[in-house]
């Protein structure tokens, strides 16, 4: 069902936890099964220099959130905002049918984080 890349990311997630003093935060809740993904970033100048996540979710949701924290690093906020579920899924070599929502949640949490930063300005 899950490919090796997804499983590896799930068993060894990176950038887990809260960043104290984060300059940007995002949160999404899946209304169907109440999975939650939170994203924390530090924006220095125009670039994202630190990113972390917390997730209450299934294997692929944890894997997608973990990979998303790596994908936003060293990107501008606008570049991060352009990352799609498709990009996140591609980074993991594909997700099983019925698990595509995990990549969408990771996309949405980035967009929520960007929207929150924009509101602060």
């Amino acid at each position: 069902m899950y490919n090796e890349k997804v499983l590896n990311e799930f068993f060894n997630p990176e950038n887990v936890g809260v960043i104290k003093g984060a300059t940007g935060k995002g949160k999404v809740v899946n209304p169907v099964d109440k999975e939650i993904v939170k994203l924390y970033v530090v924006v220095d100048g125009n670039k994202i220099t630190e990113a972390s996540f917390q997730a209450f979710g299934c294997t692929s949701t944890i894997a997608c959130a973990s990979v998303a924290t790596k994908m936003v690093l060293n990107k501008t906020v606008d570049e991060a905002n352009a990352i799609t579920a498709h990009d996140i899924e591609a980074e993991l070599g594909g997700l099983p049918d019925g698990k595509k929502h995990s990549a969408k949640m990771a996309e949405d949490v980035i967009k929520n984080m960007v929207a929150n930063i924009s509101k602060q300005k």
Partner: protein
Amino acid sequence: MEKQKVVYLDNAATTQLSTEAYKEMLEAYNSVYGNASALYKLGRDADELLAKARQRVAKAIGASPSEIFFTSGGTEANNWAIKGIARANRDKGNHIITSVIEHPSVLESCKALEREGFKVTYIPVDEFGVIKYSEIVKAIGPDTILISIMSANNEVGTIQPIKAIAELAKANKVIFHTDAVQAIGAIDINVKDIGIDALSLSGHKFYGPKGVGALYVKKGVKIDNLIDGGKQERGKRAGTENVPAIVGMGKAIEEITENIEENNKQLRSIRRYFLKQISDLIHNISLNGHPTQRLQNNASVAFEGAEGEAILMMLDREGIYVSTGSACASGSLEPSHVLLAMGKDIETAASTVRFTFSKFTTKEDIDYVVAKLKKIVKKLRSISAIRIYKNKVEI
């Protein structure tokens, strides 16, 4: 490389084949390969094996052999019972009563009948997963022809008051069917004593082979044919019989029903040991299902802040096999319909793992599982967006 320890705790999904059943199946495969409908000896021998298996299944549930029809499994038996009885008795009415926590093979059969114009009432359950008897009383009307209520639930293990429901059905001249797929071998079921008109069972849930089951239909109960063709299964379910599988199921049901008490004693002890261990070592957990009116092989546990599938995958890496809710529901994002019907919130349903033990499960297995489980739940809670403190949750 050292062989990884394997602990199989998904026995409500399927069980390991009994050695004795396997031996009888091998004999049937190798020596009695004739078509059971053939006139010559090799065919008659196969037919004899079928008769012996039918006798064993009948004896296990207190039925007559002529009331047992072999099927491809529990799903087929449920489909046949519900659709076959409803359609054959349509002249008497078009109303069916079932419950919200039935197996998908029952619920989907009822939905199919609704598309044909039948009316179906879905009875709710209480917080322990017990069907509300008073709601059945209220639902019965002059058009009611069939009540189908499971003997025990597959997800949380709650045993249903089927004797009372059977009596109610009889008093109202309504046919009573029970899906006993999880209950056979776990509770003593005698169809005559209880007053059951139709009962579904499945071989691989009690250490028999997969792909075989049976439907008991009480003499005199009208039911449409399932498959038209030859004269197999008295013309009601045509097609050459899978003799070795039927033989294996016959042996398995004989073994399990002869040892119900002994098996339950062992399972109760394993279950208690497991619950004591996880309660001592892991905080913020809760149990689903009825505390006493229950199958002894089932422990449905919610681990706050850790998602069920994630726990399953981490246990899998340690050679431990469990399930989230029901395997039939996996692959879907929707939380378990059974847990939601019991009033559990979505987060609890999403955090639930089902452990189902077998006669092969040992205390050493449990020690291994609990040690791994403790680490896994701790790890997932450290990742979780839901903060768990002892007896306190923060989202």
